[in-house]
C-alpha cells in the first residue's frame, strides 16, 4: 500500500483521526505521492474547518436544577441490607435454605400437576395474563401520547393542514385514554392516574377545536396545559412501563388470555 497504490478516502479519514493500523506506511506514502498528499491536504482543510459548536454556558447551579427536576420521579432502590447473621452461620443457613427450596419445589410441582388436572385452576393465571396485556397496551398508549405531545410542541399554527393529523390522532387517543385510565384507577397508581387525567383534558381540548389548531390555539394549549411538563411525566411513566415490558413479554409467551 505504501508506494504502489493510492490511499482511498476512507484510509485518509482513518489516518486523519489516527485510527489507521498502518499509520507509518501511510505517512511514507503521503511523502512520495503528490496526488494522495493533495487529497490529504484537502481533507485536513475540510475537517479542520468543521468547528465544535460552543454551547451556551450553563450556570454553576445547573446540576442542582437538573437534579431537582428529576428527583421527584425517582423511586428509592430497596437496597442491599446489611447482613444480621454472623459469617460462620452462613453455611448452615445455605443448607437449610436449600432444603426449604426443595420442599417448596415439590409443593409447586404438586400445584402444577393439580392445575393440569383441573381446568378451573387456570382462572388465576388468566388474570395475570390480562395484567401483562394491560402493561403492553399502556406502553403503546404512552408511546403514542408522547409522539403526539412532541408534535404538538413543535406544530406550526400557520399551516392549518399540518394540524389535522394531530387532531385526528388526539381523537383516537382520547378513546383509548379513557380505557387505560380506568385500568390505572383500578390498579391504584396515583401518579399514572394523575398524568392520564391531565392527558385526557389536553386531548379533549385538542380534539374538539372546531376550526382546527391556529397558532394562538397552540400557544394557549402549550401554556395552559403545560405540555412540556406533561411530556416529561409521560416519558417518565413510559420508561417505567418499558422496564416491566420485557418481563411481561417473557411471561406472556404461552399464557392463555
Amino acid at each position, binding site marked *: 500500500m505504501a508506494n504502489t497504490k493510492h490511499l482511498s478516502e476512507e484510509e485518509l*479519514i482513518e489516518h486523519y483521526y489516527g485510527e489507521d493500523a498502518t499509520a507509518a506506511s501511510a505517512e511514507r506514502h503521503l511523502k512520495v505521492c503528490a496526488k494522495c498528499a493533495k487529497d490529504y491536504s484537502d481533507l485536513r482543510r*475540510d475537517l479542520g474547518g*468543521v468547528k*465544535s459548536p460552543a454551547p451556551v454556558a450553563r450556570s454553576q447551579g445547573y446540576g442542582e436544577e*437538573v437534579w431537582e427536576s428529576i428527583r421527584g420521579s425517582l423511586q428509592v*432502590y430497596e437496597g442491599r441490607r446489611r447482613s444480621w447473621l454472623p459469617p460462620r452461620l452462613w453455611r448452615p443457613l445455605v443448607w437449610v435454605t436449600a432444603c426449604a427450596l426443595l420442599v417448596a419445589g415439590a409443593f409447586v410441582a404438586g400445584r402444577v400437576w393439580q392445575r393440569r388436572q383441573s381446568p378451573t385452576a387456570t382462572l388465576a393465571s388468566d388474570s395475570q395474563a390480562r395484567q401483562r396485556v394491560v402493561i403492553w397496551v399502556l406502553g403503546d398508549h404512552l408511546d403514542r401520547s408522547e409522539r403526539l405531545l412532541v408534535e404538538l410542541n413543535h406544530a406550526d399554527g400557520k399551516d392549518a393542514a399540518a394540524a389535522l393529523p394531530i387532531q385526528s390522532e388526539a381523537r383516537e387517543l382520547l378513546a383509548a385514554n379513557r380505557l387505560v385510565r380506568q385500568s390505572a384507577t383500578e390498579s391504584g397508581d396515583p401518579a399514572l392516574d394523575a398524568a392520564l387525567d391531565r392527558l385526557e383534558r389536553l386531548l379533549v381540548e385538542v380534539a374538539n377545536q372546531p376550526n382546527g389548531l391556529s397558532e394562538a390555539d397552540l400557544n394557549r394549549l402549550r401554556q395552559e396545559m403545560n405540555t412540556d411538563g406533561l411530556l416529561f411525566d409521560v416519558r417518565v411513566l413510559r*420508561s*417505567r412501563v418499558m422496564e416491566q415490558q420485557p418481563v411481561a413479554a417473557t411471561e406472556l409467551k404461552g399464557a392463555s388470555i
Partner: protein
Amino acid sequence: MEESDHTICRAVLAGDKDAFGALVVRHSQTVFRVAYRITGNDEDADEVVQETFLRGYQKLQSFEGRSSFTTWIYRIASNCALDLVGRRKSNAEDRIAEDHDPEQGGVQVADRKAGPDRLLLSREIDATQESAMRSLTAIERTAFVLRHMEDRSTEEIAAALNMAPNAAKQAVFRAVRKLRRQLAPLWANG
C-alpha cells in the same frame, strides 16, 4: 474528601436516592456539552440531560463498575441525544430546504481576504456547516460528533450507538463524505 462515583453508585443502590444528586451535579455539564453538540440547540440538550440521568438512575443496577461512570453516562447521553435527533429529524427535514444554499454561499465568499468580509465569510461557513450537519442522519451526526468533536475512538462510538465497530466507522465515513460535499463550494470560490 470527594466520594468516588462508584461509592456513590453503591450508596444509591443501597437505598440512598439523594446520593444520586451528587452524580448529577458532577456530570451534568459534560452531559450537556455532548448533548448540545449532537442536538445542536440548548433546549433539546437540556431535555437530553434530564432524560440521561433519569435513564441512568433506572439502569443503575446494570452499571457493573467495569468502566468509569463518566463513560457509562456518556454512552446513555449519546443514545438519548440520538433518539431525540431521530425524533426531530422528520420535522427538520422540511426546514432544511429553506436553509442556507451552498451555491449562494460560494458567491459571497469570493473576496475572502478582505478585512470586513472575514466576518461574513465566517458566518457563511458557520451557516453552511450547520446546514451540512443537519443533512446527516441521526446516527451519522452522532458518530461524527463523537469522533470529530469529542475525540472518541471507534470502539467507544460503537458502544455508545450499540452497533458493531465497523458500522460505527462506516457512519463516520459517510458523515465526512457528506460534509465535504456540502462544504466544497466554500473552498471552490475561495
